Structures are given as structure tokens and as C-alpha cells.
């Protein structure tokens, strides 16, 4: 994979680099290790000093407690629904639009594409006040659609997919045209399968973006049962929680981060391959 690793005479340099990166990685893990450590300490001890984290007693109570407070499960579920919804929506819309802008000609297409590209410069926050008013007027807040739909207006996916479709050799669709395939069939059967690497990339970005989105869910999902994990975790880290339930808070943070992290670990190979192996010949 790595282009230069087999070139003779670069071993020592490589070792040095590796050592440095390992060191950085250890530093990178420090915050999580610290959080993990705190999560195994009784709250009452941490209230006096977090230095107690370095010696026993340790306890699993904080984790056991999570099962008693149903909030986290519900929030994780909401986040999953929202993130999957956003991801699927973006993939469908961006693929269709990307194909359209790259391949399916119609009058005014190029102007529309430029107008859509301009949308890249519009930050979500610039429209959030007006958007909140819109959804308020429609009485749609505190629903999954309200949390999901705004994410689908992002132009990033369309831009990415358009670029990707443009990079596919045009003679493949021409061959399909000669094979009597309809526009949609060319899109669906011939070109879409070739964009799987781009779909993976876009899908990962969209999923993470939705999972980590904070501002919009914060003002749209205001009922606790509609909280995403992001908003839910914000609601737990009050000053009070930090002073009186630090260990529990840390356990919640670890627990809330765990599912998506595990999913990530499972997909990691695929993610790297998907992002990297985009070349089609």
C-alpha cells in the first residue's frame, strides 16, 4: 500500500517516525484513559479530589447505575435513528443529484449546479434561526423528521457525488445507452455500483456529522425523550453533576461513546479501504 515503504535505505527513518507517532498516540489516548479511570471511582471520593483516581477502591457501580437511568439508551437510539436517517437521505439525494449534474443534461443544469455549489458557503448556523421558526410554525419540533430533514439540504454530498460521477469514464454510460438502458437504469445498474467507494466516504462523513450534530438537535429536540445522545449528554454535564456525580458522569460519557466507537472499530478496515480504493480502471 504505502508507496515508499519498500524503498531500500529508509528503515531507520521509518522507525524514528513510527516511534514519534506511537508517542503522540499515547498522548492522544490520555484524555480517554483519564476519563476511563475516573469512571471507576465512587462519586463521593471524587468530590474531594480527583487525585484519588490513582488508588483503589474502584467500583463498577457507576456503570451499573447507567442501566437504572434509562435516558442514555433512549438517546443512543434517537441518535442512531437520526444518523441513519440523515445518512440514507443524503446518499439517496446526493447520488441522484450527482448523477444528474454530472451526466443527465437538461436546460439550465449548469446554472443550477453553480447555485447549489454556492450553498456550500451557507453555514447551517446562518439559517438556523429562520429554520427554527419554520419548524415551530409547522409544529414539527421534537420529531425525527425535524431533526433529520435539515441535514439533507447540505450541498456537500451533491458536490462530492457530482465530482465522482464526472470522474467515471463516460464510455461506460455510452455502452449502456447502446445496450438500450434507460437513464434510470444507467444510473441504478451501471454507474451507482461504481460509486460505492464514494458512497462509503460520504456515508461515513454524513453519519458522523449527524451523530455529532449539536446545535440543531439542541433547539429542535427539546423533550428529553427526543434528545440525541449529544444533547442528552449536554443535559447531564451540569455543574451539579460534575460536583456530585463525577464518576457517574464519566461512566456515562464512556458508555455513550462506546456504541459508535465499537461500530467504528468493526468498520475501520472497510472505511480505510473505501476511502482509499476509490480508483476504478
Amino acid at each position: 500500500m504505502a508507496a515508499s515503504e519498500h524503498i531500500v535505505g529508509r528503515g531507520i527513518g521509518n522507525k524514528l517516525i513510527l516511534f514519534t507517532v506511537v508517542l503522540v498516540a499515547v498522548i492522544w489516548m490520555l484524555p480517554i484513559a483519564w476519563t476511563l479511570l475516573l469512571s471507576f471511582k465512587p462519586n463521593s471520593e471524587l468530590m474531594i479530589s480527583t487525585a484519588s483516581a490513582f488508588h483503589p477502591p474502584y467500583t463498577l457501580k457507576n456503570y451499573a447505575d447507567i442501566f437504572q437511568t434509562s435516558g442514555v439508551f433512549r438517546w443512543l437510539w434517537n441518535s442512531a435513528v437520526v444518523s441513519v436517517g440523515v445518512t440514507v437521505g443524503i446518499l439517496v439525494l446526493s447520488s441522484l443529484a450527482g448523477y444528474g449534474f454530472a451526466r443527465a443534461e437538461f436546460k439550465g443544469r449548469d446554472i443550477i449546479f453553480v447555485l447549489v455549489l454556492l450553498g456550500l458557503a451557507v453555514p447551517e448556523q446562518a439559517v438556523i434561526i429562520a429554520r427554527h421558526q419554520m419548524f415551530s410554525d409547522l409544529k414539527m419540533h421534537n420529531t425525527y423528521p425535524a431533526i433529520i430533514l435539515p441535514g439533507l439540504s447540505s450541498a456537500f454530498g451533491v458536490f462530492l457525488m457530482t465530482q465522482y460521477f464526472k470522474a467515471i469514464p463516460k464510455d461506460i454510460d455510452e455502452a449502456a445507452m447502446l445496450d438500450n438502458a434507460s437513464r434510470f437504469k444507467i444510473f441504478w445498474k451501471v454507474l451507482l455500483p461504481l460509486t460505492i467507494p464514494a458512497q462509503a466516504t460520504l456515508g461515513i462523513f454524513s453519519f458522523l456529522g449527524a451523530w455529532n450534530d449539536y446545535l440543531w438537535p439542541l433547539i429542535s429536540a427539546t423533550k428529553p425523550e427526543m434528545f440525541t445522545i449529544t444533547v442528552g449528554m449536554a443535559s447531564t454535564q451540569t455543574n451539579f453533576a460534575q460536583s456530585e456525580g463525577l464518576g457517574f458522569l464519566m461512566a456515562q460519557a464512556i458508555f455513550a461513546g462506546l456504541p459508535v466507537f465499537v461500530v467504528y472499530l468493526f468498520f475501520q478496515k472497510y472505511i480505510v479501504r473505501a476511502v482509499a480504493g476509490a480508483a476504478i480502471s
Partner: protein
Amino acid sequence: MRKLTTALLASLVVTAGASAALAADKTEISVARFFGACEADYGTVTDVTKANGECGIITALINKFNADSKTTVVKPEIVEWPGYDQLTARIRSGEPPVISVMHEAVISDYSSRGLLEPLDDDFAKAGVDVNDMTDAARQGVTKDGKIYAMPFDTHTWLWHINMNLFKQAGLVDSAGKPILPKSTDELMKQAQQFKEKTGKPYFISTLANETAFYTRTFDTLLYQQNVDFFADPNKVNFSSPEAKNALQLLADIFSKDLTTKNQDYAASVSSFAAGEGGVFICGTWLIDTYDQEAKKSGALANGYAVTAFPQIYPGSPRVWADGHSWVLLKQDLTDAQRASAIEFMKFLWDNNYEWSRTGHLPIRKSIINSDQFKNLPHRGDIASLAVNGTALPSAVKRQFSIQEIEGEEVGSAMRGDKPVDQALTDAESRINELLANAK
């Protein structure tokens, strides 16, 4: 571990099923509150007397209500403190909670926009004797002649004292009482003495990440000098020598290292418990927590005292105060829901003593005067607060935003990021700008 998980999951399912079954024939009302989440420790506690601390007591209170009430299920919705941003968004979205906790300082912003239900008639019907409310509480929840909330407590600013360190610093008198400053000079002198004797700062203060300390302390220092900075409710006035004195005092405390610095709320709470300073300037709500701490071995062991904010200016003993209260948000409620909401408020009214165990002052004269309350630890030391606690005039709009701005500017000056005069001018112009644009 596996067994544990299974058991926990099973109990979860059972609880969920049970509460669903209960909810079926009872009216459910949502109650938004802060005070933190502690279902883990108090999720099943219905005996309120066994609960401690704000979070524990409110959780147990609601549990008890749900267990006792034959008509109502309260669904607690725990929000981030102070939670008004989200409450705002929720009201705007048309789905507010039925009841929300609200600082008395904030009520007028909502009531003046018709977002709250007046409660006089409901209280009368439910048998809540409003004449039993303390003056502070009744003023706090009454706007334009109507009662808009069920008061829950009056909380004020006071000094938590580590007697063990005070002893070490030679600041305890023969009667075993802490020696407290009676003027600014004494304050500086005693603080210096404390620092020299113990090697620790006199004050522990919450200077990071929130502005409450700055506003509440500064307001108190102004009250002590009889400064009425909101003589005109639409215009703040900080351009007085008194204001400058007060702010300069805070800046001196900081620059002379007489306080811990950089601590956020959690850090300051725990550092007082860990004995890292003599005086923690904070609120009533920690009294119970530290009292429990004093019963354990540790820096506070048998050495916790609490006192009203000492009067270091000759004006008056008034001190910043606010109150928690419960409001009924205007929305389409069924009669049953409204009845349930009032039932819950009445329940809180009836159990106000339990809440006062946190350290907050009760809102009922009958409780303040009861032996039960007086016998709670340290309550004699702070009885004066019920009288001296002072809120902003209720005609002042946007009190929370004002306190936020005031705190930011006072903080900037105290930490030396800004000259004192500049901070006062900025605070004044920002607040007046806010008020000029406020409806």
C-alpha cells in the same frame, strides 16, 4: 457481570412495564427541572427523609408523589442548568412541559409575554394559603398582582467556613465561633493572616465557566453599601464610587492571591471539601452536602460552619437572593392535567420542609418558624437571610441576561482582564443596550 447485567435488564423491563401500566389510568404531566440527575442513587427512593442534597431530595420527592398520588404521574424531565434556552425553544415549538422549575428572577420575562398561567384561583381551590408564603417568596412569584408560580425556596449567598483551617489561622473566638471581618480592611487583614498561617487562600470562589459568583457577590457588596443600582428598572447604574469600591475589593482579593483561581463550580465545591481554603462563598444549597461531609473523616471533619455574608460595609446586611419556583406553562391543558399540575404543586408546598433540608430557605412562614426547621444544623446562623435576601426589583426585565452580562464584566475586572472603570462602563452600556431592546 453477566448475571448482573441480566438482572439489571430484567429489572429495567419490569420497571418500564410497571410504569406503563400505571400511566394508563393516571394523568401524566411532564415536569422540567434542573438540580441534576441521580436516578442511579435515588431512582427508587420514596422515603424523602432518606435523601440528601438537591438532586436526591427532588428525585425522592417526585418518587414519593408518584407513589402516593392516585390520579397523577409526574414525568420528570431533567434539563441542563439553568435550562432557559431550551425552555424557550420548547415553548416556541409549541410543546412546553406542563410544569417547569424557574428562578423567580426570570418569571416576569415569561409572564409578561403571556407564557405562564396565573395560579391564584388554583391555589385558593387547592387550599394553598398564600398568606403563609414568606414575603420574599411571595414577592418573587407575584408579577403585576398575580401569582405565577409555586415558590420552592429562597436561596441566598453566604459563607461556608472550614473551622479546622480557621482554627489553624487563629480566626476562632473563645466561644468557638469564627472571627469574621466587619470592614474591608479587616477582611484583607484576616485573609492575609489566614494565608500566612495556613499557606492556603482565604477564599474559595467559583471564578471559571460561570458568572454567578461575580454577580451575586458584587450585588451583595452593593446592597451592603445601600446602592440601589436599579432605581430606574429600565436603566442600570454602576457609575457610583460604591460600585467602584466593591469591584476594586474583588480585584484586590484576586490580585493578592487571597482566593483560589481558575476553579469552576465543580472544582470549587470539591476543593472546599478537600480543605483547600477557608471560606467558600457560595449558596444555601450546599449546607446539607457539607454537613454530611463534616460527619466523615476528612478536611471538614467536625469543622464545618456556615454564616450569612458578613457585613463589611456599613450600609445594610442585605444580600443577593433569588428563589426557585414552579410555573405552569400556558398551553392547551385538559382539566385533568391542570388539576394534576396543581396537585403536584400542592404536594411540593406541603413538603417544603424536606426541600429546606438542602440548605435553601423554606418559603412558608410556618416552616421557618417551626422547631423542626430551626433544629436543622446551622439554620440559626442563617436565619437572618430570610429577611435580608434581596432580589432585583421585579420591574426589571431580562434579569437572567442582565446577571450574565454583569457577571462577565465583573469577572473581567476581578481577574484583571479589564480595568475596573472600563468594566463598570461596559457592564452598564451592555445592560442598558439589552434593556433598551427588550420588550
